[in-house]
Structures are given as C-alpha cells and as structure tokens.
C-alpha cells in the first residue's frame, strides 16, 4: 500500500474500532428481555359451533357463526392462501359503507388458518353484517364483504 492509503487505512480502523464496539454494545443492550410472540393465537376466541352464513373467495372463506351457549355472533376468516396485502385489518359496520370511517376495527388477519373475531350481542339484530378488508400499508379498503345474519 502507498503511504497515503496506509494512513487512511489506519484512520479508518481507528474510527471503526470506536464506532463498531459502541454499536455492538448498544445492540446487545437493546435485546428485549422477553420476545413477544405473535399474540394472535393466544387471544383467539373459542370457535362458535354453528355457521349462519358464509362468503367464499378463492383464497379465503368468511363464516358468520353463532353458538347457543355463547353470546352474540362471531366472524371467522379461514385463510387458505396468504393475502398479497402484507397487513390486512378487518373493519365491521352495521351499515353498508365504502370507507372505514364510523366503523369498528375487529383486528388483523395473518397467514393461512382460522382467524376469529367476536362481534358481541349488538350484531344479533342486524339482518346483514358489513365487513371491510383494509390494506394498512396503502391505507385503502380493498374488499367489501356483505354477509347475511339470518
């Protein structure tokens, strides 16, 4: 190496010798005490026994459920193929709507499997349930689902 490059080399490693250990130690200190698992499965409500009505798409199914021993209604999403949208939120409304304004958020849908949300007693009286699938990343509704509550 020529002298100038050697000098630059020395300075660079002096700098790295200070910065890298600082970054390394900071990263070690930042390791969380407890890694929080995806809490979706933990909070998954008990599956209601009876299907009232269903809605089917190629990659997923939606069932509105009831159970004689449990209050209210339950919406179950059975995801067969993961959504192309990275983060899908489900919104619920009693009235037909195009946007998530004046709706209630039920939760997030993850990968393939059963994803369940309890609607409570208030949904019992409505003849139809309106669900909106919302792309959190693009901040837009990408699917409207109407499901019969009969």
């Amino acid at each position, binding site marked *: 190496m020529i002298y100038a490059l050697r000098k630059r080399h020395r300075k660079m490693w002096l700098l790295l010798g200070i910065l890298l250990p600082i970054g390394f130690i900071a*990263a070690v200190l930042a390791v969380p005490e407890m890694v929080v698992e995806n809490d979706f499965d933990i909070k998954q409500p008990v599956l209601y026994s009876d299907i009232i009505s269903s809605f089917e798409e190629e990659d997923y199914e939606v069932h509105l459920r009831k159970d004689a021993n449990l209050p209210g209604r339950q919406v179950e999403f059975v995801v067969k193929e993961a959504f192309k949208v990275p983060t899908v939120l489900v919104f619920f409304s009693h009235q037909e709507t195009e946007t998530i304004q004046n709706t209630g958020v039920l939760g997030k849908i993850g990968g393939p499997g059963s994803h369940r949300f309890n609607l409570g007693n208030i949904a019992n009286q409505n003849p139809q349930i309106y669900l909106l699938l919302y792309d959190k990343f693009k901040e837009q509704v990408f699917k409207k689902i109407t499901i019969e509550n009969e």
Partner: protein
Amino acid sequence: MALNYSAVLWNRQKKIYDKVMLGLIGLYLVLFVVLNLVFFSEITAETLIIRATGSCAIIMLHVILMIGPLCRMNSQYLPLLYNRRHLGVTMFILALIHGGFSTIQFHALGDVNPLVSLFLSNTEYFSLTNFPFQVLGFFALLILFLMAATSHDFWLKNLSPKVWKSLHMMVYVAYGLLIMHVMLGVLQLEKSPVYVMLLGLGMVSIIGLHLKAAFDEKKKEFRPESLADNGFIKVCDISDIAENRAKVVLIEGENIAIFKYDGKISAINNVCKHQNGPLGEGKIIDGCITCPWHGYQYLPENGQSPPPFKEKVTTYDVKVHNSTVYVNPNPHPEGTQVEPAKIV
C-alpha cells in the same frame, strides 16, 4: 502477470486455492443443513438457504479481512493473499443468494414492490430493537457488488490503482454495516449468548489485527531527521538487509525499497504498479524483485518489468560507504537505469 488479456490467469496455485475454498464452503453448507434438519426438523428450505448462505458469507468476510493484517505481520500468510479476490467474489455470491432469498421470502410475496417494501415495511429507524436491519444488509450488499464487479484487473487498470484501492477499502464500511445487520436483526431474537459472543470475538479480532498491523507498520517507518549535504541519507548497515530482501524506508513521502542481491545494492519505489503492493516485502527471484501480493516482477537496477511486460517504477541512487547504506530520495523517472552500489 500476463502480456495478453485473459479473463482469469489460472495457474496451479489458484486452482488449488479455489478447490480448497469451494471444498470448505461445501462442507460448511452440508453440515449446516444436516444439523438444522436434525435439530429443527420443521425448518423450511427457504429459511435453510437464507441462514446457511448468510452465516457462511459472514464467516468468509471475517476470514477475508484477517488475511491482510496477518500478511503484513507475518509473510507466512502471503499464500492466503494470493487469490483473495476469488474468496471475495465467492463471498459476494453467497451474500447475494442470502439477500435474494430474504427479499423474496419477506418482501416479494405481497402487492408492493419488494424494494419499496424493504425500505418502508418497517420504518422504525429510530428504534434499536425494531430497527429495519435488512436495509443495512442491502447497502452492504451494494458495496460488495461494486467490489465484486470491479475486482478484475481490467477495472484496476482503467480506474487506476489508487481509485480502485479506495473503492475496495469500502469493504470496511460494508463490514460495519453487516455487523449491525446481524446484531440488530437475527440476534435481537436470539436467546443464546453464544452467537453474540462469537460475533463479538470475530469483530474484536478483526479490529485488533488491523490496528496492530497498522501501528506496527507506523513504528517501522524510517524518517531521517535531515538530509546529508550531497543529498544522500544514511539508512542502515549492510548487515541489516537480508540477501535478496529489502529494507523499506519512508523519506520525504517517498516509499523506497532498498534491495541487497549478488553483492550489490539497488533502490526502487516500494509500490507495485499492479495493486500498490509492497515490493519491499517481496524477494528477488530469478534476478527480479517479485511483489509478494500477485507476483509482478521488476529488475532491481532499472525498476522495469522484464520484457515483454511494460510496468515501470521509479529508481533511486544508492551508495555504500564503510558498510553503511545511503540513499538519495530524489527519484529518477520510472524505469531509469541506475548503477547498483557494489558491496566491497
């Protein structure tokens, strides 16, 4: 060293080097896959590929970065340096597979452009625990790509050794990015301290070796206090220079290698025209000063590569008086014939 263009100058040493390298990489990957399948039977093929290539690449990067300072401290390691470029390009290919599969696995299955997703799916840039560490890997891969793409002598010649070497020193930045990529990525979820300790050990070794080599060299620098009247400077005793070897001195910014051979003393510039290798750390083979890095050769009395090669370095006047070696630091133009000083 070759007169005609050839994509890769294969020789026996390079072939052995590459075979050993590929054998070791293959062994590591097979062991990694087998052990993972035994202990984590539910692991998917994609995850296996991502982890195997990523871990192999980071280990290789540590090996690559150790070679330079080890060679400067002990010439026995020089054979490792000879074909380091192939090691570097192979490491880049493994890193590229790791990066490619990670991007597909984590960012390409949605409806967002994978690159947009890479930068924006996690925007917690001010958090250490949740830092979007993949971005660090992306920039490191970009640097490694530039290095791999310009690794051939074609680029060395066209960019000039100084620019080329500066570009390739970016590997240190890439190393820093990759340490943080691992620390803020997979190791944030790892409960066992073993991996953190291993990475820490590797990092301390790399920094320690580079700093030790750098300061050892600084100590060795010969800086005369003043010039002698006739322009010659006292350098050392003849006995301080081993036969067919050199003493390197730095005088007024001139990096001079003073060689002893066949009862004569000659001085040439210490910097090889190929990759700025240290000629003074090489030795005289078949009458030619041979660069320890890649074997480029120069004649000691005129600094010219033997025909048909055309590389030339500057030469210096030397004299020997009462077994003391003197050198004039004013360089002659590259390739100028200078009468060697006779050792009486």
